[in-house]
């Protein structure tokens, strides 16, 4: 009998001996202090995604992901001004709208295909206003003060809450408060600042028809004041630069030459139809319109030309906002020029790029002057043009299939946020000799195919 027991003990010992131990990761804060973290910025910081601000989008915001890692080195509670709805509230062309989800949609030709469709059931306009009008200020102060839609200098504008309900809903007094005033309430020991995207983006998203690019001196002045306030109590932090618009699917999804003609009769009809206009164009020695079998540049409106239209040139951009049914069924881009609000022309792109470059020079200068970690998001997002692989999954800037951007083509999805959070962590670790662990990207929700 005794021998039997001995055998059992031996077998038991064999089983338990069999989980190899590896030293655990040892997180450390290095020269920084992550006790109180404040995230300042725009929609990207707020957790806006899929064209709206909604609960789980906020939960998966990059600041909230970072705060989870800061907790490992004594980071405190991270409070966000949570939206009360998963349907979301976003700003669309025709008023407020819900978030987008991936679903089946039928186009004007009767073809069913997979694409972004509104969340179902979508709230009505009154409900949207209700969500935005309900103040959550009592839950504050907030560690995430990202406000969708704001430009750099808006952070210093008194009464911003009246113009921007996303701030209005968490400002103590929306009629007088400045966003920058929230900093003192939190008194951060560490901050992240990603601001300035909208200083070019609001212009770019409207095809250059609305708004204007913030002049560099105004941007720089605003950023000086903001960084000055953030670092007033010797807080350390990370500052993020502005990605080129060309890194986002919103500007790269529709090719300039997606007018594909497969029928000789269509080619002839278009050339015949534009013949009278080409006579006029020739008188001005302008570029005539010509069509051939295969891929053709779209016809776009151009108010700078006396005759009002031309074919788009390589390098010019058609925006994701273009109503695709109008291309498919209403002759947009062929018989009808695409309206200016859906196109970025070469001179507009050049102005946007010049401003982005100037802003980024300023941001790099601030990082240097205040000894902040510089998160070079501009260079980093460019690496996703061809795709980057993490843990066996490829992520690229391709719309929907790329798995990095949300369905609005501008903001990141949760995995995208996790990817950039890891990039923040690398920059923070390097700058402050800290040892913060990265997050597991695929533990965050990706694009969910239905």
């Amino acid at each position, binding site marked *: 009998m005794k021998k039997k027991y001995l055998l059992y003990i031996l077998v038991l010992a064999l089983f338990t001996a069999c989980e*190899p131990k590896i030293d*655990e990761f040892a997180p450390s804060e290095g020269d920084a202090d992550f006790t109180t973290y404040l995230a300042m910025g725009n929609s990207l910081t707020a957790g806006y995604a899929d064209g709206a601000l909604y609960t789980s989008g906020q939960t998966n915001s990059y600041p909230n992901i970072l705060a989870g890692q800061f907790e490992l080195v004594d980071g405190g509670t991270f409070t966000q001004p949570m939206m009360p709805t998963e349907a979301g509230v976003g700003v669309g062309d025709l008023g407020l709208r819900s978030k987008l989800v991936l679903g089946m949609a039928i186009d004007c030709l009767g073809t069913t295909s997979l694409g972004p469709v509104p969340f179902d059931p979508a709230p009505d306009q009154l409900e949207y206003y209700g969500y935005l009008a309900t103040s959550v200020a009592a839950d504050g102060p907030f560690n995430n003060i990202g406000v969708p839609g704001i430009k750099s200098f808006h952070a210093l504008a008194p009464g911003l809450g009246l113009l921007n309900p996303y701030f209005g809903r968490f400002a103590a007094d929306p009629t007088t408060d400045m966003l920058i005033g929230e900093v003192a309430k939190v008194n951060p020991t560490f901050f992240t600042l990603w601001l300035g995207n909208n200083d070019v983006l609001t212009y770019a998203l409207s095809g250059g028809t609305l708004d204007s690019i913030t002049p560099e001196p105004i941007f720089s002045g605003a950023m000086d004041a903001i960084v000055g306030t953030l670092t007033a109590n010797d807080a350390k932090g990370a500052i993020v630069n502005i990605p080129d618009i060309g890194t986002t699917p919103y500007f790269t999804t529709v090719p300039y030459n997606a007018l594909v003609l497969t029928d000789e009769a269509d080619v002839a009809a278009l050339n015949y139809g534009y013949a009278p206009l080409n006579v006029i164009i020739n008188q001005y020695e302008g570029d005539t319109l010509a069509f051939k079998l295969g891929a053709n540049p779209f016809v776009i409106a151009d108010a700078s030309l006396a005759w009002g239209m031309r074919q788009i040139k390589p390098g010019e951009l058609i925006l994701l906002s273009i109503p695709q049914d109008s291309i498919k069924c209403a002759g947009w881009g062929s018989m009808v020029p695409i309206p200016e609000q859906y196109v970025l022309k070469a001179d507009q792109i050049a102005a946007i790029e010049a401003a982005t470059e100037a802003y980024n020079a300023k941001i790099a200068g601030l990082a240097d002057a205040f000894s902040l970690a510089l998160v070079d998001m501009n260079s980093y997002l460019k690496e996703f043009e061809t795709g980057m692989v993490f*843990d066996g999954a490829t992520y690229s800037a391709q719309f929907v299939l790329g798995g990095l951007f949300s369905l609005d083509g501008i903001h990141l999805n949760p995995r995208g946020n996790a990817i950039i959070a890891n990039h923040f962590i690398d920059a923070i670790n390097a700058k402050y000799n800290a040892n913060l662990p*990265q997050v*597991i990207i695929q533990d965050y929700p990706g694009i969910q195919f239905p």
Partner: protein
Amino acid sequence: MQTQKLNLMKKITLLLTLVAMVTWSAFAGGFQVRLQGQKQTGIGLIGTPFSFGASSIFYNPGALSMMKAKTNFQLGASGILSNVTFQKSATNYQAHTDNPLGTPFYFYGARKVTDNLTVGVGVYTPFGSTSKWDDDWAGRFLIQNISLKAIFIQPTVSYKISDMISVGAGFVYAMGDVELNKALPYNNNSSVNIKGSTNSIGYNLGIYIKPIEELSIGIDYRSKVVMEMEEGDAVFTIPASLSTTIPENNKFSASLPMPANLDVGFAYQITEDFMLAAEINYVFWSVYDSLNFTFEENGEMLNSNNPRLYENKMIIRLGGQYKLNDNFTLRVGGYYDPSPTNEDYFTPETVSLNTIAFTFGFTYMPIKNLCIDVSYLHTLGSETANSYDPANFSGTYKTQAVIPGLGISYNF
């Protein structure tokens, strides 16, 4: 005698019916498993320079005709308790495998036809690998679980040229099957199951030399066996919206090589009861260059070429045996088994690290013709930082294995 035979046969059938269920866990050296005889396992898995009866069919067919008994049967099995811990680089993430008990087994039967000519057959399991990670672990897009197994059947002829030298050859008929699961990044439930079985052939050649009474030398060459899988089943669990792009049921072909081995061993009888032995195994792992899947439908999108870039490696083994009395023989050994994997192409499907291991064993002879062989193998945990660059998946792996084994040998 008759009942004993019957019992033996029962055990054999029992073992063979288990075949359908058995799995092996890799504990070293790629996915090779050399636990093909408990006596040999006890002496650091040295086998070439010994004439331990019918198990020479695997270790050295040349030594088979040197066996003393007229007829010898051996059967046995081991239990591989092995697990892996993974620490993902730059994160505080750790994962552990939950590997099932691996049970490689062997059966050998050999009979002297004449004094010089011996024939036999062996059924053994020289290759196999099981890794079972959690379905939602960080490496799920590389592998969730894999089970790879091979059973070799080897009819063998051995001829004793003189008391000093004998040679042998075996024909190998190999049966293999593989099943693996991995997640796909389309939504939270997307995955693919790949399953197939195949067979192949190979050979095993050996020579056994006994220049003086105290010294024996064995040389053995086991050919590579390439498992060509055709018409394997691939079942994709994918979102409905992608069902037109990726067919749910697909067929695949793939090829998995099992490498050749060249073994050279020496055994020296220091006293009548005390023997020391050493062996080197040169394993031609470089044949495992990549694992490529070709799919019948939608191959353009699904086909994958996965570099493995294994390198040839040499295993060094030392061991000894001491005959305590007529009933008991004790064994001890150890070996160093360097990993054939490439540090930049190291996948969690086969976690093979440089391994140092110790072995112990004994034989108990309750009656004259019966040996009960017990072995125990213990690997020292080894820890290595590796990466699978194509997937950008890197971290530190640590493995540990304990392997008890039991076998019997019967002469008549």
